[in-house]
């Protein structure tokens, strides 16, 4: 059986890539995708840990995380679509109506 640590390291790597993506990308849709990647990394960790402990808990968490991801996506893409209606671009660098 593949050791749980392997899965945890994989999930750590995916989470880091997600965080990195959020920090460096400029397109909100891609940023959002990177956030989904972070959630997925957490899900891998949950399932792997659940197997490690022989608990069904790990998979329960994933079900809730999935529901949350779905809800976030519908609202997030709604925001992006509605923002595109009033301006032609959605680059986060152009979100500069409000400055410090």
């Amino acid at each position, binding site marked *: 059986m593949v050791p749980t640590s392997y899965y945890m390291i*994989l999930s750590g790597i995916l989470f880091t890539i997600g*965080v990195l993506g959020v920090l460096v990308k400029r397109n909100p849709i891609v940023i959002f995708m990177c956030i989904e990647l972070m959630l997925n990394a957490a899900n891998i960790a949950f399932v792997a840990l659940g197997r490690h402990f022989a608990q*069904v808990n790990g998979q*329960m968490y*994933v079900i809730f995380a999935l529901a949350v991801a779905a809800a976030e996506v519908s609202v997030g893409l709604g925001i992006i679509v509605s923002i595109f209606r009033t301006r032609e671009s959605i680059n986060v660098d152009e979100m500069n109506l409000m400055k410090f």
Partner: protein
Amino acid sequence: MGNALCRAARGTCSAYIPGYLNAMPSAPILVFFILAAVAVISALMVVTNVNPVRSALSLVVTFLSVALLYITLSAHFIAAVQIIVYAGAIMVLFLFVIMLLNLGAPAEAEPKNKAQSRAALALSAVFLTALALAPLVTFSTDAKSEAAIKNLGTVSTIGASLYNPALPWLFPFEATSILLLVAVVGAIVLAKRRI
């Protein structure tokens, strides 16, 4: 050969594996590494691609390989749901929006914010070491026996635990319906032209 590999894959009768096969990593490890490599590479492509459509496609590949990883963790139901929800619904919505807004054309050279990128990389490196090394220390012992986990991911086990009033999952499950209701109302409020 195939037979032996199959045995190795099952991990049941390792004593009968010919000596030369012992040197090989067992099949599950190989499968894991292949899937993990696909997941990580496609995840990196999500970040490195300039074209949002390609990013989305790479993310779909990541999700699919994650789904297969769930199968190797004997979480079949989660694997199927991962494909249905993430690959089949969420990413399709992403693609739909990208296409609707016609963002597909490769963006004009992204203004690179060097300082921010460097800070992000440094931060990520810290994260990576912290997150990747922590489990190494914690999980020195191996997981439970295979018999204990083989039924964890079946639909009946999941359903029976999710709806079991003696377990704490029933309430969050119901609370999730409020969340989805909020999302539905919210999406309509945001995106419908006239409320």
